């Protein structure tokens, strides 16, 4: 459990958000993350995020699938249980290609979905702190990470100066923890620390 202090501000539209992200980075504040109701083109670049390596992971999963299929089928048809299919040789590569293709796709797809969920910290029975409930509805929420030396009041007024509404400071868990959103409305890990703001 790693609790950190964050300053949260909401914006009403993309244009204001882009300008705010740019000014925040220029001012030297560290943006923890930006939560938006829909994907926004170019925001990753504006925030200076590095390119995702999800596709590299996908390639590795795909290669694993190819290897699994070829070695599996090769072992079964050549040594474990050789069968005669219409007089074809036991090592019949063309006939294996469809299954190899399917396993490649299956491994890379399932692997990438699971990696994506892990990177975004999403899974069943797992919870994450929501900085603002309307970030899934109509607000563009920018979260600035604070250090021990940060003056929260100064950050709050800075955000208000950029046109943010609903500006507040929160102490929150950065990772994920076990729990369900529909059962417990308050994240249990935060009960003791939340009023500290």
């Amino acid at each position: 459990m790693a609790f950190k202090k964050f300053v949260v501000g909401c914006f009403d539209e993309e244009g204001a958000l882009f300008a705010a992200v740019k000014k925040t980075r220029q001012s030297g504040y560290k943006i923890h993350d930006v939560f938006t109701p829909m994907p926004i083109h170019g925001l990753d670049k504006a925030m200076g995020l590095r390119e995702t390596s999800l596709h590299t992971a996908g390639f590795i999963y795909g290669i694993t699938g190819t290897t699994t299929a070829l070695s599996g089928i090769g072992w079964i048809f050549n040594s474990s249980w050789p069968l005669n299919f219409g007089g074809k040789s036991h090592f019949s590569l063309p006939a294996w290609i469809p299954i190899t293709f399917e396993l490649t796709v299956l491994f890379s797809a399932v692997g990438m979905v699971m990696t994506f969920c892990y990177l975004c910290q999403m899974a069943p029975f797992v919870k994450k702190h929501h900085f603002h409930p309307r970030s899934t509805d109509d607000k563009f929420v920018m979260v600035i990470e604070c250090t021990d030396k940060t003056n929260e009041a100064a950050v709050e007024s800075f955000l208000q100066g950029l046109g943010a509404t609903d500006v507040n400071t929160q102490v929150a868990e950065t990772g994920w923890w076990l729990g369900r959103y529909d059962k417990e409305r308050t994240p249990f890990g935060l009960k003791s620390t939340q009023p500290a703001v």
Partner: protein
Amino acid sequence: MASSKEYFVVPGRYKQWTLGLIGVGVLSLIIGFILYGGKDQGARWWAALLQNSVYFLLITNAAMFFFCATTLALAGFNMAFRRVTEAISASVIPIGIITFIILMCIVFGGKDTIYEWVNRDHVANDANLLGKAGFLSRGFFTVWSVLSIGLWTLLGVKMRKMSRSIDDKPLSVQEGKRFIFKNTVWASLYIVWFTLTVASVTPWLWLMSIDPHWASTMYSWYTFASTFVSGIALMTLFVVYLKNRGYLEYVNHEHLHDLGKFQFAFSIFWCYLWFAQFMLIWYANISEETIYFKARFEGAYIGIFYLNFAINFLAPLLIFMSRNAKRNYATVTFMSVLLVFGHWLDFHQMVFVHHFPDQVQLNLFDFGVALGFVGLIMWQTGRVLSKFPLLVRNHPFLKESIIHHT
């Protein structure tokens, strides 16, 4: 937007290269005729002409297919380089005429040099060919070839004319909507005709009937995939050339990325069809069908068979997989040249194997003829590019292309 780079000025060296390449082509034809014209009724010479003319006709026609497909999809990303697509598709006119003359010479030349179904006495004693006699006949072949090439040309001219008609006329919103609708109507007519020709009947007639006893329903899609990949590669080469010369100011690596994605995706599509056709025949193992792959897969052409697979599938799959490769001018140019060559090789094994099953015939003569057609495409494309502005400046979707971002 009146910049000095609004019109393409054909550079002197471009003209020299064009004329040089056409010269090489004509010279190859003459030398080839001297060398091969007498042997076997000139089958070697006619096969090379057929392969090259049909291949280059279909890849320039693929540019018009791209034009119409993107129009129907209301796509905006390609507006920055749309004039390049148009100019390449204008090459359908000269190459279409040449192809038609070659086809007619082959069919009405009086001999069954390339197509054995031309010989009616032979067909009368062959139950298989007799069953196909209505389809594989001089009449149907001629009518269908005229219709194919004629309608590609006419609908292409109409599409290009509509695109140029708004060059000096800014459109209001209402006019823009009407313009887009009119475009989609004509584009859909072209697409329907394209489906009936390139994606079904025409490759059966022109290429598959070289092996008249053998039939594959996948053949035309496979041909289409082949020509579409190399058509995109050809467009990419012209876009990169113009960009290098300082034209096409709104084209950037985002558009290059899209062209790279098209090449990547359709290379995989090509391999899917290529493999599906091969594997079903290999698996069923019926002698009427496997005869097609006998020379290709087990005979003299096995080298070309695997080279075809390596160039047209493995190379784009591995090289174009990463995002950075598709955004890099050098890799994209290299892959485009490789793919145009690779699919040319694919057409070589489609056309040549039936008549020359014992030995690969590929030599400088084939490359010379191919270079002649490349020169012809360069000449026509350069000429059309220089006549009209390089930017579709009043097209309603232009802004979408300028701010395009992936």
